[in-house]
């Protein structure tokens, strides 16, 4: 019985759903502040100290708004897709060791890296479905762009994620994280750089935020959404960013592990994890501010002609390094 309570606490409160939810809000606030400061703006200031509650207020506001389903939409898919994509990403996050062990106790199994990557693919597919179901030309084009871009970048992302797996000799995320006495960013910096670039495309951030290009397709796949469904679509995007950053932390930055000074190791692991994750968020936001949005054909050319060969090359190099240099 005691074990069961602990299980529910971990899944629902900390480091599970409640924590992840509020941490996502916090990351969103950090992103907005950084972007604003880089662009000579203030960013959120009104809600809470320095506007820290603004993302939360946005979600609450959207949840209270009228929820309209367009008459031409495919209603079941339209209603379910945002919630499903959000829950799948939260589920995928639960497999990552946040304070030393995964959110769901003892859920780690051999090959869960592949499993988590698959979940993310499915979540993106639900995003595509949500745009496609909304029966709106902007939504259609946005959805088609999500799919086109996603098909292109999923392959390099998985290939690059295999690099740490080879270095660690395991496909288990917790094993990869715990085997990094020297973080893999030092051992395979090329894979890290490529992984962050690919992730930028995967998360649809500038210069790859083509599905959301508001000057071309208004809201993209979000165009017809409002109220709670829009809140969930926004949450999905924010959670995706947290997930992507968490994946970088686990695979390249040594996961939650770091020096333990005193007291509980879980506390220090958690602290290191959060700090590393925020570092990755800052990097992605920095890239976002520096570039203009590319065009879909340019992105695809870059993907198939440059990134895919490079990621194959990076994998080969990593295998060679793992075999001969640091066996």
């Amino acid at each position, binding site marked *: 019985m005691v074990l069961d309570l602990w299980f529910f606490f971990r899944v629902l409160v900390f480091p599970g759903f409640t924590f992840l939810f509020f941490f996502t809000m916090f990351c969103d606030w950090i992103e907005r502040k950084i*972007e604003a400061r*880089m*662009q*000579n*703006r203030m960013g959120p200031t009104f809600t809470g100290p320095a506007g820290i509650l603004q993302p939360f207020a946005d979600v609450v506001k959207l949840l209270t708004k009228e929820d309209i389903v367009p008459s031409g939409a495919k209603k079941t898919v339209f209603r379910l897709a945002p919630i499903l994509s959000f829950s799948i990403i939260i589920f995928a996050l639960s497999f990552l060791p946040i304070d030393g062990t995964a959110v769901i106790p003892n859920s780690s199994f051999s090959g869960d890296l592949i499993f988590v990557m698959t979940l993310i693919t499915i979540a993106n597919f639900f995003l595509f479905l949500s745009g496609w179901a909304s029966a709106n*030309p*902007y939504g*259609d*084009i946005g959805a088609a762009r999500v799919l086109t871009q996603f098909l292109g970048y999923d392959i390099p992302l998985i290939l690059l994620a295999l690099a740490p797996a080879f270095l660690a000799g395991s496909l288990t995320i917790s094993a990869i994280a715990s085997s990094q006495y020297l973080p893999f960013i030092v051992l395979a910096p090329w894979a890290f750089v490529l992984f962050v670039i690919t992730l930028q495309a995967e998360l649809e951030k*500038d*210069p790859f*935020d*083509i599905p959301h*290009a*508001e*000057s*071309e*397709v*208004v809201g993209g796949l979000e165009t017809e959404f409002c109220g709670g469904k829009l809140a969930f679509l926004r949450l999905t995007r924010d959670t995706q960013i947290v997930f992507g950053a968490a994946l970088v932390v686990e695979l390249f930055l040594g996961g939650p592990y770091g020096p333990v000074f005193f007291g509980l190791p879980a506390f220090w692991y958690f602290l290191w994890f959060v700090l590393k994750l925020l570092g990755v968020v800052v990097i992605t936001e920095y890239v976002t*501010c*520096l*570039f*203009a*949005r*590319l*065009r*879909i*054909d*340019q992105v695809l050319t870059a993907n198939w002609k440059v990134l895919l060969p490079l990621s194959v090359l990076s994998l080969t190099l990593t295998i060679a390094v793992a075999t001969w240099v640091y066996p």
Partner: protein
Amino acid sequence: MSQKEIDILSVLQAEFKDTSVQVQPEQLGKVAVIADASTHRDVFKALLEADEKTAVIAITGIDLGATIGVFYHIRTSKAGIITIKVEVPREKPRIKTISDLMPGAAFDEMEVTDLVGVVFEGHPSPGRLVLPDNWPDGVFPLRKDTKLDNLQFKQTPPSEPESAGNENIVKIIVGPQHPALLEPEKFALKVEGEIVKAVEPRIGYVHRGIEKAAESRTYLQDVYLVERICGICNACHATCFVEAVEKILKTEVPPRAKYIRTVLLELNRLHSHMLTLGHAGLEIGFETLFQYFWRDREPIMDITEIISGNRVISSGMTVGGVRRDISEADIPKIKGMLTGLRKKLPFYKKVYEDEPSIKMRMKNVGTLKREDALKLCIVGPTARGSGVDIDVRKDEPYEAYGEIPFKLITYNEGDTWARMNVRMYEVEESINIIEYALDNLPTGPFRVRVPRVVPAGETVNRVEAPRGELFYYLKSNGTAYPERVKVRTPTFANIPAFLATAIGSNIADVPPNFVSLDPCFSCTDR
């Protein structure tokens, strides 16, 4: 008159010596040619042969009482403005189109059809342009006998089905409300996949009838009315109007007023160019660039405030001069602010010329060749980006531009990148012009008294607004109210450039291509 100008006059006089066509020098621009509905095409053809840069600036439709006048205002590089005057009977106003000879005239002809009811035979796309679709047939707002109360509006015709015929073609409506447009106009893009197959424009959403309203106000009131045609190029509209009135009054403006006007005009240009350069960043998803440009636009508005008391609409012009002097104490302050802006320019130039993602999104996007630019009568930075060296400030200097040295910026690429870089370099030229004008500000009065009643007469005038050549036709009838004010704004002339270059491009290329024309729909619709 220079040698070049006599040229075109003698060409016309020789060509039409024994016909009914009359050639009158020094009327309505350099030459007024009085033709009729059977000969106007011959005159236009003769002008086209004489000069490759011949372009239609505007077509004025005017109610002359017994007849309807159709005045073709034509620009040639050799002789300034030439006006072909044609009169058609009021009962059966029909005339042959010239849009087959000069595709850029198509929009002007549609507007004349809407406003005074002249039918252009053989027009490629007859239809409503500025009036709404449900406007009653046979009511022409700019005819003097038209009563606009008790209008019986028609049923709005049903819109055509979304995908007529081909299922692969999706119709994407850009506007009247759309994030890419700051003002309401509609462009229906027919796309197949990501490629634009056709563009259907529909303007007139912000048509306020300013040309009509100007007829019921005095000349002085009209200055403030025409200023409000466009918020950003307000000084240009006001200058163009007051210069036209001064031409009829034969008033000479004191030199100090000319220099102050020049400063206000160039502030307009700075403001407009900085705004567009930033807005282009927003359209290609480069928000940082947008925020930076709009931050550095602020001092320009502050300078306008120092000079005129207002941040945007300066209301500085009046018939006979300017309304406020620049005080000597303010000049160092203004120059300090301009120097601050100038220091930032090398960085921005580097960004626009070399930043890789900007080059990827703007190079070879919306390329407009020089021949097409000439044929479509394109003006301003858009034309200069295609290698057409037209600029009213150089071609026909007004105010103090004849005395101030500055460079004419042209690029030959003709793409979005070239158009934006023309603006980038013109920002620097504008700062130079303002500094020169402030350094060499003549002393003396800044306005002269003028009578309120303007003698009968007619004139044309043009200035170089930030977006291109702005044209006014003004007819007075000897009272305190003008008889006809015709405004042709640069965006109206430039929209054909977008329509021509958007077809076949990617959807993602449409916003940067469009914003590189610096479209202003308040101007377009008036």
